[in-house]
């Protein structure tokens, strides 16, 4: 069953000094439990797409349906992870994780155990009473992922969540994300500008053109899971990366 159907989606930002055509006629569908990666050059409208999917930005044209109903505003069954962790420094790790529970009045009591289990899942057990400034960048981003999962959303939207991390931490986070996904089987839309990261994580990679962004390719990644980091060196891995990169180069772009 399809969770998301994006139809003829366009976005035009207009401001005093002209308008920016960010997205043009985007079409795609996502099935239940699928892990989708979206790659594209910087400024092609990836974040715009994510904000529209999250319901915090209205589209100029077209529509997005979540389980058949159009997205017209923020939804309670979506978890979002941004490029920076966006933690509230005045809340402890646990309180940050429980933010969606507080906002949506789901009841802290019932979610305390869920929060602890999730913190355990991302390897942050014992840190629940700490404050964000006491954590490293990678740990903060794990808190952000935990927060996105706490209210058991149907879908997880991630906007270059590991973009600010160093290469080593980033690989670790990729492994962890795969592990979490294998355990929870959420539908994930994962935006990145790293092609290897997209191929490593995703069932399907959507390749976007430069602005105005539209989808120029939809690549199925048929590498068995769980994928180890070494999979990046396997003979079946390189062709995916190569062909996606080829699409960019053909378009005359510097590779991402």
């Amino acid at each position, binding site marked *: 069953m399809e969770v998301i159907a994006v139809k003829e989606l366009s976005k035009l930002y207009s401001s005093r000094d002209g308008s920016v055509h960010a997205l043009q006629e985007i079409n795609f569908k996502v099935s239940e439990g699928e892990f989708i990666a979206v790659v594209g050059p910087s400024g092609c409208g990836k974040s715009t797409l994510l904000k529209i999917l999250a319901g915090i930005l209205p589209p100029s044209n077209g529509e997005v349906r979540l389980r058949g109903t159009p997205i017209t505003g*923020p939804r309670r069954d*979506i978890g979002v992870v941004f490029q920076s962790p*966006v933690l509230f420094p*005045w809340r402890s790790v646990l309180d940050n994780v429980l933010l969606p529970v*507080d906002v949506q009045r789901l009841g802290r009591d019932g979610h305390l155990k869920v929060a602890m289990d999730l913190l355990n899942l991302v390897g942050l057990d014992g840190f629940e009473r700490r404050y964000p*400034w006491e954590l490293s960048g990678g740990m903060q981003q794990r808190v952000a992922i935990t927060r996105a999962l706490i209210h058991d959303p149907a879908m997880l939207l991630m906007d270059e969540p590991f973009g600010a991390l160093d290469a080593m931490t980033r690989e670790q986070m990729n492994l962890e994300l795969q592990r979490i996904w294998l355990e929870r089987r959420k539908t994930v839309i994962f935006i990145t500008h790293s092609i290897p990261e997209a191929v490593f994580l995703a069932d399907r990679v959507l390749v976007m053109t430069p602005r105005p962004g539209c989808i120029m390719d939809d690549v199925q990644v048929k590498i068995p899971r769980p994928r180890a980091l070494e999979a990046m060196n396997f003979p079946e891995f390189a062709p995916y990366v190569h062909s996606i990169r080829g699409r960019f180069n053909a378009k005359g772009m510097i590779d991402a």
Partner: protein
Amino acid sequence: MKRFWNVALTILLFCSSILAWELIVRAFEIPTFIFPAPSKVAMALWRGFASGLYQKHLYYTLLETVLGFLLGSALGFFLGTAVALNRYVEYFFYPYIVMFQSLPKVALAPLIVVWFGLGLKSQVINTALVAFFPLLVNTMVGLKSADEDRMNLMRSLAASENQIFWMLRLPNALPFVMAGLDVAMIFALIGAIVAEFVGARAGLGMLIQSMNFNMDVSGQFSVLLILSIVGLLLNRCILLIRRRVLFWDPSEKERLERERIVL
């Protein structure tokens, strides 16, 4: 050990400068009504407290300062909140705010005496007026400074405007509000003293003025000493509150580090 020597050195330096002051005043026979020796100041201080005179005026000035501070900063906070949250309030009020902000508020003190008399009311109003603006401006700026990513996060969770205010904007504004309180406290004491200069029946400011008429310079020095200690203690109170409230603020930690070096 190093700390011990620093403290010892500080005390030594303090004592020797007092001693030098005493010796210079005696050696050059500077008249007491121009520049009193520390011994004379100490005597004035003792006499003032022994007769109960200073306690009475100190109490009065403290009362004005604290009442005016609370009134002014509460009003400043609420109006600042209203301006930050409501575009119409901002549109209609902001021009006046800008106009009043550049006005030295103590210049209104004579008028306030005319309107409200020589009693406590008049001094509290004057003090409140001075304490009002730092809070107004800082609250306004603080509430509007919520980071766009954090706003997006709250929106993506379908948070109501009310929740965004209580869970994000307000805590986010606290460092600004606390900085405003810091300034307002200092201003409040100034406001109270100026109000007493202009016309009051009691208070340390009034005391300074009457001592000035009587050429009691040692007395004035002793009151100045009290005032500087009062100012310091009031400031410490705010600092203590600030540390409790802003334990999470990274810039607060930097401040703490700096102060630890100074102390």
